[in-house]
C-alpha cells in the first residue's frame, strides 16, 4: 500500500497537457476511426477503402488554414500516426507545428460481453504499456479508449457486469497511459439508441460515470491529468418528442455536476450520432448556460467537444474523392472546427457550415453488433 502518487516522471506534463486540451476556445477532432469504420464511411461515399484514400481524407482534415486556432488536439488511429502528407510531411509534425496536441486511439475495439447479449467490453490491455511508450516516442501526448454501454430499461441494461467490466477497463487503461506520459481521455459512451426519455438517460449516466470515477480512484489515476468524454444527456434516438437544446443543456449540466469530480479539467462531449448542426448548437447552449452565476449551474471543468462525425461528415461529402474538391473540403473542415470553437465559448451564431441535409448521423455499427455478423470485427 502506498500513500503518494506513483504516476511516474510525467505528472506535471500530464496536468499541463490536460489543461491545454481543455483550454477555452478549442476542442478535439476525433479522427481515430479504425480501418473498418472509416472504410464503411468511405465506401458509402463511393470511394475505395485503401491506405492512400484514408491518408488523402485525413490530410484534408489536418491541413486546413488556421486549424490550430480551433483545435487543441486531434486523435489519430494507429495507421495515421505513422502516415505523412502527399508531400511527405509527417501528420504528427503537421499538427504539432500548429500547436495541436497529437492523440492516439489505443483500444482494440469492442467485443461482446460473454453471457450478456447486446453488451460489450473493450479490448486492448495486453501490451498496452509498450504501445503507449512507442506512441509517446512517435509524438503522441494523449490517448483515447472507447467503451460503450447500452440503455434498455426493459432488459435491465446496462447490466451490473457491463458497468463493472467497462469501468475497470477504463481505469486500467488510464493508469497505464499516465505511466507512459499520455493523458487518458476516459470515454464511457452511453449509446444514443433506445426508446427511453431524457430522465432515464440522466440517471444512467450519473450511475455509470460515478462507477467509472470510483475505479479511477482505486487505480490511483491522477484526475487532474485526465479528460472525460461522455455523451450529452439526450433522450433515446427512438424517443418520439424533440427536445430543445435548452433542455439538453440543463439536464446535461445537472448530471455532470452530480458525478464528475471538479479536479477533472475538461469534459469533452462526443457527438455520438447528433447531426453536425445539433452537436454545435447543443454545445453552444451548454456553454451559455454554464456562464450563469447561479450556484446550481457552476461548472468547475471546461465543457468542450471531441467530435468525430460532427467534424467530418460534410468534409467527406464535399470531397467525394475528387482532386478539384480538395480545397473546398479543407475549408469545410476548418469551418466546422471554427463553429464548434465558438460554441465552446457560447458565441456560436448560425448559419451552420454543414453541407448535409440530415437530422442525425447515427451509425448502427458504432455499438453492439451481432457476433454472428461476419463483418463484426472492427
Amino acid at each position, binding site marked *: 500500500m502506498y500513500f503518494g502518487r506513483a504516476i511516474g516522471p510525467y505528472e506535471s506534463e500530464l496536468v499541463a497537457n490536460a489543461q491545454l486540451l481543455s483550454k477555452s476556445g478549442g476542442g478535439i477532432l476525433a479522427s481515430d476511426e479504425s480501418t473498418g469504420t472509416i472504410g464503411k464511411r468511405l465506401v458509402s461515399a463511393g470511394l475505395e477503402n485503401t491506405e492512400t484514400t484514408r491518408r488523402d481524407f485525413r490530410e484534408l482534415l489536418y491541413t486546413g488554414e488556421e486549424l490550430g486556432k480551433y483545435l487543441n488536439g486531434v486523435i489519430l488511429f494507429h495507421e495515421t500516426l505513422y502516415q505523412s502528407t502527399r508531400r511527405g510531411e509527417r501528420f504528427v509534425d503537421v499538427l504539432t507545428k500548429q500547436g495541436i496536441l497529437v492523440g492516439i486511439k489505443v483500444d482494440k475495439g469492442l467485443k461482446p460481453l460473454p453471457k450478456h447479449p447486446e453488451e460489450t467490453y473493450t479490448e486492448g490491455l495486453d501490451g498496452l504499456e509498450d504501445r503507449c511508450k512507442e506512441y509517446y516516442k512517435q509524438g503522441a501526448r494523449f490517448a483515447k479508449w472507447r467503451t460503450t454501454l447500452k440503455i434498455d430499461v426493459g432488459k435491465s441494461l446496462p447490466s451490473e457486469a457491463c458497468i463493472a467490466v467497462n469501468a475497470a477497463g477504463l481505469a486500467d487503461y488510464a493508469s497505464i497511459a499516465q505511466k507512459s506520459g499520455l493523458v487518458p481521455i476516459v470515454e464511457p459512451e452511453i449509446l444514443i439508441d433506445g426508446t427511453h426519455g431524457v430522465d432515464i438517460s440522466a*440517471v444512467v449516466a450519473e450511475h455509470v460515470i460515478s*462507477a467509472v470515477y470510483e475505479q479511477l480512484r482505486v487505480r490511483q489515476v491522477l484526475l487532474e491529468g485526465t479528460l472525460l468524454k461522455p455523451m450529452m444527456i439526450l433522450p433515446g434516438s427512438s424517443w418520439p418528442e424533440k427536445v430543445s437544446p435548452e433542455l439538453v443543456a440543463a439536464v446535461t449540466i445537472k448530471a455532470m455536476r452530480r458525478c464528475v469530480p*471538479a479536479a477533472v479539467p475538461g469534459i469533452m462531449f462526443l457527438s455520438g450520432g447528433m447531426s453536425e448542426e445539433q452537436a454545435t448548437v447543443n454545445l453552444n447552449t451548454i456553454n451559455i448556460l454554464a456562464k450563469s452565476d447561479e450556484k446550481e449551474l457552476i461548472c468547475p471543468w471546461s465543457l468542450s467537444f471531441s467530435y468525430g462525425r460532427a467534424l467530418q461528415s460534410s468534409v467527406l461529402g464535399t470531397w467525394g474523392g475528387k482532386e478539384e474538391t480538395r480545397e473546398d473540403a479543407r475549408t469545410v473542415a476548418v469551418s466546422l472546427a471554427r463553429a464548434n470553437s465558438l460554441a465552446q465559448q457560447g458565441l456560436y451564431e448560425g448559419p451552420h457550415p454543414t453541407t448535409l441535409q440530415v437530422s442525425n448521423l447515427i451509425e448502427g455499427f458504432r455499438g453492439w453488433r451481432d457476433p454472428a455478423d461476419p463483418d463484426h470485427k472492427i
Partner: protein
Amino acid sequence: MAAFVGSSVSVFVGDRSVLSCSRAGRRVSESGRRAVVTPVKMTYAAGIFEKSNPYADELKATARYISQRGRGILASDESNSTTGKRLAIVDLENEEVNRRDWRELLYTAPDLGKYISGAIMFEETLYQKAADGTPFVDILKDQGIFPGIKVDTGLTALPRTDAETATTGLDGLPDRCAAYYKQGARFAKWRAVLRIGDGCPSDAAIIENCHALARYAQISQAAGLVPIVEPEVLLDGDHDIDRTAYETEKVLSYTFRFLNEYDVCLDAILLKPNMINPGGDYPTPPTPQDVASYTLRTMLRGVPGAVPGIHFLSGGMSDAEATENLNLLNTIEGSERAPWSLTFSYGRALQIAVLKTWSGKPENKEKAQTLLTALARANSQAQLGKFEGEHPSPEAKTRNWQPLRLV
C-alpha cells in the same frame, strides 16, 4: 445492482446491500445468500428524485440556505453523556435543566443568526424550551437558523476489526425522521467514524460505514430532512498528511459511490468531512498552507460539484486552526474553482471556550454569549476568506481532543 427501488432478497441481506460494482468480480455475502442475479425490472423512473420526492424543492432550498456564503453550522448535538462530560468541566451536574440552560445560552446569543445558518441538536434539545417557555426551534427560526437533528444512535464496535466502529440508528429511522420534521427540524446529521492505523481503515469498516451513511441519507431525504453526510476520518494517530489524504480520498469515493447507488440527490445534501491534517501524534505540526492545499485537492478530487456545501468538522483542531485553516482554504489558488461552499460545522471550536467562560454561572452568561457570537463571526469571516487579526478565543491554540465513545 444499482437503482433498485424496493429490495429483493437475492440482492440484500437484511438491511445491508452487498455492492459488487466496486470489484470486477462478484462478491459473496456473509450468509452466502447471494444468488445468481436474475435481471429484475429496473424502476429507473423512481430514481428520478424530482419526480419521486415531494420535498425535492424544499430540500434543495434548505441545503442552499445553510451553505450560503458567510454562514456555517453550529454543531450542538452532543448526546447526554457527552454533554455531561462537558458540564463536568465547569462543575455542573448532568441534569436536564443544566443541559437546557447551556443550550439556551448558545441559541439566544445576540446576532448569532448573522453567522450561523443551521444548528444541530440532540433529540432531547429538539423538544426543549427556554426558561420562559419558548421552544428552542422557534428561537432558532427567529434568528434565521435552521434547526437540525442528530439521528444516529452512537458508535458500536465492529467485530473482528482493530478498534473500528460502525454507527447505529437505521432501525426505526423513517419514523423518527418524520417526527423530527413535524417538530420543526429541517436537516439531519449522522456521524460515521473511521480511523487510520495499521490496516485501518479496513475495507469492512469503510463499506459498513459508507453504506449506513448512504442509507441514512436516503431515508432522511424521503422524510424531508437534508442529510449532513459526515464520514469523519479521525485525527488520532502518528501518520503523515499524505496518508490522511489517501485514506480520505478513499472514504469519500466509497461515500459518493454508495450515495449514488441509493439514489441520494446530491443537490440536497451537505458534506461534513475532516480537513486534511497529519495525525495528532505526527512529530511536526502542519502549516495552514499544507492543510489548505491538501484539503482543497482532496475535495476537488472527491466531491461532485452538485453538493452545495462542504461544512468541515473541527475534529480536535484548536480554535485558531479551525478558523485560520478555513480562511486559507477560501483564499488559496484553486479555491476560485470550488463549485461548493467551503465552510464550517463546528462543535468544539465554537463551544469549549464559551463553556469555560460561562463556568455555569449566570453572571457570566452575557460574556459567554458575546464570545460565542465573536467565534461564529470569526469563522464566518474565514468562510469569506476575510479573517484577520487576533482570534477571539481565549484558548485559541489548544487542541480539543475527545476520546471516541461507544454506546
